[in-house]
């Protein structure tokens, strides 16, 4: 699904946000990107949905050469993937239903497809009963679920999440991660950039750790810290 080969992202001031990264992520995988702030997690995600282009290297997402993608081809790439952010990025003057439908409307979907798909997706994220409410009337967890519904509305094969639980309390965090797991079980590839050690340690999925723009560890069923669960750190 995702293939990065020798990818470097350097800013004009010479700082390297990512330094010679190579990474393969298969179809249906669930991967955590971990590391301190400023280690390049968000930059890596941005390269995948072509918010930025790499300075060097090759990036392939779902068979598309993203590093060479022309500007006018970017919308086609983005219709194949969903993106979720820490701050939800919902439109406050639109209801939950309208926010989710918006993603289909602006890509030219037919009304009957929208009428069919939106209730189904809202049902999946558990927000069907709040579809007429505005984001300001929802809890943070519900807002994030609405954002996930919007990311999923076009049935993407890949879901990119940038600190999806960063603004949530532990109970909402658990709910969101369970939702992401359910989505993953249906075959969607999920990449989550996070600081949240508890989440990573509890879920025991693949963990890619970044430091100073480089991949330092890549473990199947890993912990936030190399080979150590949270309880072991606390007791040690």
């Amino acid at each position: 699904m995702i293939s990065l080969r020798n990818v470097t992202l350097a800013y004009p001031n010479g700082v390297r946000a990512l330094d010679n990264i190579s990474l393969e992520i298969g179809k249906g995988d669930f991967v955590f990107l971990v590391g301190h702030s400023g280690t390049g997690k968000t930059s890596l995600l941005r390269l995948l949905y072509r918010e930025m282009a790499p300075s060097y290297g090759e990036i392939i997402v779902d068979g598309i050469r993203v590093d060479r993608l022309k500007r006018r081809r970017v919308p086609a790439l983005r219709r194949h993937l969903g993106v979720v952010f820490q701050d939800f990025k919902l439109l406050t003057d639109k209801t939950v239903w309208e926010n989710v439908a918006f993603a289909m409307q602006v890509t030219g979907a037919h009304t009957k497809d929208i009428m069919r798909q939106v209730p189904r997706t809202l049902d999946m994220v558990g927000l069907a009963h709040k579809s007429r409410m505005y984001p300001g009337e929802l809890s943070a967890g519900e807002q994030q679920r609405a954002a996930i519904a919007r990311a999923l509305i076009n049935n993407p094969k890949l879901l990119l999440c940038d600190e999806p639980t960063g603004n949530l309390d532990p109970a909402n965090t658990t709910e969101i991660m369970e939702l992401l797991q359910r989505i993953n079980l249906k075959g969607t590839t999920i990449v989550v950039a996070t600081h949240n050690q508890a989440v990573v340690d509890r879920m025991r999925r693949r963990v890619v750790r970044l430091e100073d723009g480089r991949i330092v560890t890549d473990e199947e069923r890993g912990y936030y810290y190399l080979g150590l669960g949270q309880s072991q750190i606390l007791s040690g």
Partner: protein
Amino acid sequence: MDWGRVRFFLGEVFRNFTRNAGMQATAIGTVAVTIVLLGGFLYVRAVLGGVGHDLLQQIRISAYLQQNASNATIAQLHAALLKDPRISSVQFVPKSVGLKELRKETKGVIDLSILTKNPLPDVFRVSVHSASDVPAVAAAVRRMPGVANVVYGKTIVRRLLHLGAVMRRVGIAVIVLFLLVAGIIISSTIRLTVFARRREIAIMQLVGATSAFIRLPFICEGFLDGLLGSLLAVGILAVAHAALWSRVFRALPWLHIDPRLVNTPLFFAQLLLVGAAIGVIASWISVGRYLRT
């Protein structure tokens, strides 16, 4: 036809348009003022053009013949003048008629009875289709056999032609300036709307909306600004045309308006088209610039 899509699109346009109502009013007002000035300017230009045209139409070339020109020469000359496609009419004034005319014009001022013989030559009075041909035709006639001299309002023709050329150039410059001002104002308005909707635009881009789709509601907004502004202007001009110009023409009956330039319905349609086009072009540029960054 998917009415849901149409409704969504019109909703977006309406939302854009009402979000910055104050700024839209400013843009529409500016376009209206610009188009009123432009329309007024074109009116004045048409009036002055009409006056100039009238003056030039009255200009005739007088070809004075040699005293000894024979009837055959006169007939040949007449035929040659009629053959020239630039010439619209030729009038032969024999010296006897010329003297009569002179007597009539100078009656009570100069006593012509002292003349023992007619000193005037025969004259051809030549009119041309286009005033700009007067100097060339005059020169050609001067070279024809039997012609002693050629007289026309050389200075006034030259000045009027020169004035016309300058007016055209100044006119184009002024029009371009007006249109630029209107374009810049609409462009600024659209930029404000784009800025107010930057979150929505970011989400549209994130979920894969094409640039054309994102652009279209803003283009429609610019189109509406331009069209409404020029409609307002056309209304003002139509009222002014009905109320004011008839009085102006009564007060200055010698004014003639060139109907080709201000044939009212066509003229107003052109102003509407110019206003709408300015709106579309200005918004196209300002959204395009935002989407590229």
